[in-house]
């Protein structure tokens, strides 16, 4: 029997690594605005070449963060919101715990200086 990696697990493995790059973050934020964008649109007005944008999109695609769909002559890229939400929710949960812990520290110190 052939063993196959669970695609969901594989995608999350590279999720944070994929987001750990400033250019890719910029692409993610741009795609987060909602409308699918072409490579031409994504590289317009920036110093990043089309080739570089293409490369970054493939990394994002590999992490399950972005998807390309052919529309006429070019591919249009959009964000996979479920994956993005997964990354955000993970960090939000940890941030919230730190906020709560720091609030308890502040209360303790200020009430008993």
């Amino acid at each position: 029997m052939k063993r196959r990696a669970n695609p969901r697990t594989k995608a999350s493995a590279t999720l944070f690594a994929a987001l750990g790059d400033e250019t890719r973050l910029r692409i993610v934020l741009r795609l987060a605005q909602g409308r699918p964008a072409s490579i031409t649109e994504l590289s317009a007005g920036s110093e990043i070449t089309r080739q570089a944008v293409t490369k970054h999109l493939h990394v994002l695609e590999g992490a399950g963060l972005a998807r390309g769909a052919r529309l006429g002559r070019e591919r249009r890229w959009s964000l996979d919101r479920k994956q993005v939400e997964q990354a955000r929710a993970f960090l939000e949960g940890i941030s919230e715990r730190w906020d709560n812990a720091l609030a308890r520290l502040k209360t303790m110190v200020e009430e008993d200086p």
Partner: protein
Amino acid sequence: MNQIERKTLIRAPRSRVWHAITDIRQFCKWFSTETTEAAFRPGASVRLISTHPGPYYKMEFFVDIVEMAAEHTFSWRWHPANVIPGEDLSREPMTLVVFRLEEAEGGTLVTVTESGFDQLFPSRIAKVLGENESGWKYQMAALERYFGDAK
């Protein structure tokens, strides 16, 4: 995206805040934990037990103390969001937690950073999410807040 940073201003002198963070008895109070250990010291792996109500109640975890620079820096490595009792974490990567203290107008500024999330195994992320998923909703503002900070 590889780091979380949180700050709070505490209206107290730096020495008082340092003591509250690094004296293990005081630490246990605000971190909602208990321990049988006498003190934190660099290089020590300190066993703590959560007393925080919720999914972590009575869960044991370890903090491996990295640095203690008086009134300035306190740091440890740990497995964040450990949710399965008795789980073997020995092969999983850890994150680094750093407390930094600075004098500030009206008191002491405490900055906590936690970094190394890009090294975490997907199984851990999935577990933490499985535990809390129902309570979290999508917010674009929050997305921008976290993603925009990672420079």
